[in-house]
């Protein structure tokens, strides 16, 4: 096959940017050979991460998270529902992940991105299996009223590792969530109690003061891509499009494995590779936890 030679010749004449677009895999591999990534990172290092809590003023809890340029905005709105018969003293947490057309050239209006329902499902599975939240804490009046927490995550900029960023922003928003003080009125409806008129009201407040949820163990995740023998942590969208083997590992703060997700891909993830990924994730969890603690000094875990 004369092909490799053909672009060998071409490559010497091409500009870097053109080469990158025309032969992405070759460009990528040349970098790997030097143990460096196309954006200048070492292989196992995640991108710069920032968390900003309270980004949406009108929500009960919110967070803006950036990992590299991947940006997620999460808001939680609390509404009241009648709990189901099977679990009369449990509230509910509904998680939705949206990819609006602004976030990526691939998404077009009216045609939701393929990834968004997948990430939605993964997120709610992860958060429920991590037992991070006790749904009993969302109960108001047993059998009558309970909180329905709508957690909506919007991807504002998609540049790889969507699940990691979405999970981090969901967790951050939950840590920021303040449950409003409410009372039940005569009609059996739940109404807000504001600080001034709280005492004047004859009704018994159901939820006396603003409170935070107790977060028992917080899940954090890291996505790695496997290419030949290389393991690359926290891939960008460009890297994700070149390499097909992805491994997402979720650990909680105590280092327990919560979920592991490897959707297909040609490279078989050997146990050793998986263990390397877990080790990388363990480091990352420590890092992320310290970020979150910094934003949330009064959070007790």
């Amino acid at each position: 096959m004369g092909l490799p030679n053909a672009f060998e010749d071409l490559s010497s004449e091409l500009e870097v940017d053109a080469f990158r677009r025309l032969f992405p895999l070759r460009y990528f591999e040349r970098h790997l050979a030097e143990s460096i990534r196309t954006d200048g990172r070492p292989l196992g290092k995640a991108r710069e991460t920032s968390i900003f809590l309270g980004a949406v003023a009108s929500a009960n809890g919110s967070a803006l998270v950036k990992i590299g340029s991947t940006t997620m905005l999460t808001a939680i709105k609390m509404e009241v529902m009648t709990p189901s018969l099977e679990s009369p003293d449990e509230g509910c947490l509904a998680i939705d992940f949206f990819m609006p057309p602004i976030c990526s050239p691939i998404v077009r209006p009216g045609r939701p991105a393929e990834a968004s329902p997948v990430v939605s499902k993964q997120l709610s599975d992860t958060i429920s299996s991590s037992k991070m939240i006790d749904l009993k804490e969302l109960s108001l009046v047993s059998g009558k009223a309970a909180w329905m927490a709508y957690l909506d995550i919007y991807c504002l900029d998609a540049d790889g590792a969507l699940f990691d960023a979405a999970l981090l922003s969901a967790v951050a928003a939950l840590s920021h969530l303040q449950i409003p003080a409410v009372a039940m009125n005569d009609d059996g409806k739940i109404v807000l109690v504001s600080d001034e008129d709280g005492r004047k009201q004859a009704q018994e407040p159901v939820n006396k003061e603003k409170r935070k949820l107790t977060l028992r163990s917080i899940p954090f995740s890291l996505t790695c891509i496997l290419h030949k023998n290389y393991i690359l942590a926290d891939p960008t969208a460009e890297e994700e499009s070149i390499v097909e083997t992805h491994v997402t590992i979720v650990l909680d703060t105590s280092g327990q494995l919560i979920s592991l997700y490897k959707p297909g891909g040609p490279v078989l993830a050997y146990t050793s590779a998986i263990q390397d990924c877990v080790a990388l994730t363990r480091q990352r969890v420590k890092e992320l936890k310290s970020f979150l603690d910094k934003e949330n000094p009064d959070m007790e875990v």
Partner: protein
Amino acid sequence: MAGKGGATPATYSPSPTTDKQKPALFKEDWVRPDGRGFHQCRPAFFRTGAVNAASGSAYAEFGNTKVIVSVFGPRESKKAMMYSDIGRLNCNVSFTTFATPVRGQGSDHNEYSAMLHKALEGGIILESFPKTTVDVFALVLESSGSDLPVVISCASLALADAGIMMYDLVASVSVSSFSKNLVIDPVLEEENCQDGSLMITCMPSRYEITQLTVTGEWSSPKINEGMQLCLDACAKLAKIMRSCLKEAASDSKE
């Protein structure tokens, strides 16, 4: 748990017990909810390059109204089969579920999409990208009044950031009328009980109006006054937008 969403019972958001009296608008000594003067706009904040994945993007914040606009293209258009010697402009405006005080569905806003298209088409040199499409997608993160004007101004900044040829920046401002008073850049509470509204989208350096809508009853002098108010505010707004672009350009040079 979350999985039970299948048969989600109807939910409602709890409201304060004390029935809010209708805000005492129209009174002589009436002050605006955020304490601004009648002819004073909210402080405007713009930043370009908010979304890396897009060819151009901008973020705008007017008080609590927050908007992101991404521009993609010029790129091949999938919808248009026919040859066209001018470019196509495609606009879409959507809201987040948490944009409005009551949780919404986060759906597309067709009226705003059409309005955004009309406001921008007069400002873009469509001849400069034949056979291709430029997509302008806006997401209203938080809505707190004057959403459409903010979206339009932000979109024109995003277009500039994407390097799309335009005759001029397109700035947009609206005023609300309350009996005799005109109030510029209204917030949501004001919009909900206004008698009429006037929105102007213009290209200040060319002194041209690309879009204009009026609702409610207006006499000729009042229309004059409202238009002048908007045009002046648009000119100021365009200055802020321009300085934002200059800043971004000088940053990238360094």
